[in-house]
């Protein structure tokens, strides 16, 4: 991932899609989107914490910070969230909704 793309992702305000449900599992979590029927595996236990905390922080970077995720792991998280955005499990938060 390019630095530009990484920074762009880290700066976004995100939230879990209201139609997505998270089920904790020993390896992390399963996420299911009731709307588009996509099933996604979150393969880190702390991904779950981050996904759930997204809407409480201004940006993805702030969420990672708040969840105590080591900066060296941010690129891998950004990548994971990029794919969650693509499957609409996570979506862009629009300010007027909050």
């Amino acid at each position, binding site marked *: 991932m390019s630095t530009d793309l990484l920074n762009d992702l880290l700066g976004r305000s995100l939230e879990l899609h209201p139609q997505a449900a998270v089920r*904790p*599992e020993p*390896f992390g979590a*399963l996420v*299911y989107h*009731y709307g588009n*029927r996509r099933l996604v*595996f979150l393969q880190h236990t702390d991904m779950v914490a981050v996904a759930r905390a997204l809407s409480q922080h201004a940006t993805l970077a702030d969420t990672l910070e708040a969840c105590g995720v080591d900066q060296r792991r941010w690129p891998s998280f950004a990548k994971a969230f990029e794919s969650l955005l693509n499957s609409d499990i996570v979506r862009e938060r629009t300010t007027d909704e909050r």
Partner: protein
Amino acid sequence: MSAESLVNQLKSGLDAPICLTWELTYACNLQCVHCLSSSGQRDPHELSTAEAKRVIDELRDLQVFYINIGGGEPMVRRDFFELVEYSVAQGIGVKFSTNGAFIDAEKARRLAGMDYLDIQISLDGVDAATNDAVRGAGSYDMARRAMDNLAAADFGPFKISVVVTRQNVPQLNQFKALADSYGAQLRVTRLRPSGRGVDSWDHLHPTNAQQREIYQWLMAHGEGVLTGDSFFHLNALGDPLPGLNMCGAGRVVCLIDPVGDVYACPFVIHDEFRAGNVRDPGGFSAVWKQSELFTSLREPQSAGACASCGAFDACQGGCMAAKFFTGLPLDGPDPECVGGDGEVALAELAAVPVLLKPRPAADHTKPDRRPVLT
């Protein structure tokens, strides 16, 4: 975590199944020659509406996201809509499979009005001759009428579900065109020698040359065609097909049958793979979490005769049900092993004078209507 370690995690089991099939009834208006559940007659011990709802409550508590409803023909149950609506109200999506007989214009409108509901109409040939040879006279028209009714009711993208056979492999492109013409999604799955399929598999299963054809076709269509991840034994031919590459029986998959028996997967209705019953103390959850059978299926399995094969990581030795009902050892090659090892093993087996292939449990075939292959 890599894809490989995810598969290893999944093999050791999940807190609840991902892919749970629930056969609501053994009753069916058809008598398909390959029917995995040997359906026909209703079983007098079928779960009642109240019992079924208790199972749904349990699945909700386990956070099962959706269930696959099958049978028998699920729509013959009088409480079919009641159970589907109850399930969706509990936050459990429903995908159900049907031969289409009961989807008239009015039912199609009712179905179209429901949320979180997916429908699979089964069709095993693009023309009546091919389809009806497997599914019985009139079944092609029945399925097409259901599709027309769903389209007219604006149901949206339903699925057309095809079991791939020797006879319909040449029709794969036509199936795709048919699905496209309805704006439907095509789903093709692997034939297993289960239920009445034990007796028809020899005649119906694709040849070794056709296995390659199926693989190429699936590779070319990628995620545009659904497969239920059922063709992973073909991964030994090259790059892996999309989806999970493993046997999920008792690990991420299971079956609840109409009388509440819990089996490791829909294709192994046999005492050896029966883990318990939802009517037992502790219900489904205890069976899923604690049964001896499921616990042992989640332990590392031996590669047996496949250990020396370079493709083992790709194909994982194939489908447990396919091996079991063809009489092959579970730790050896799949009967449709693309390396040809399965065929050799089957031939050796046929040479044994007393052949004791396991028979499926729970045969509900209507005695006067036992189907014959034509």
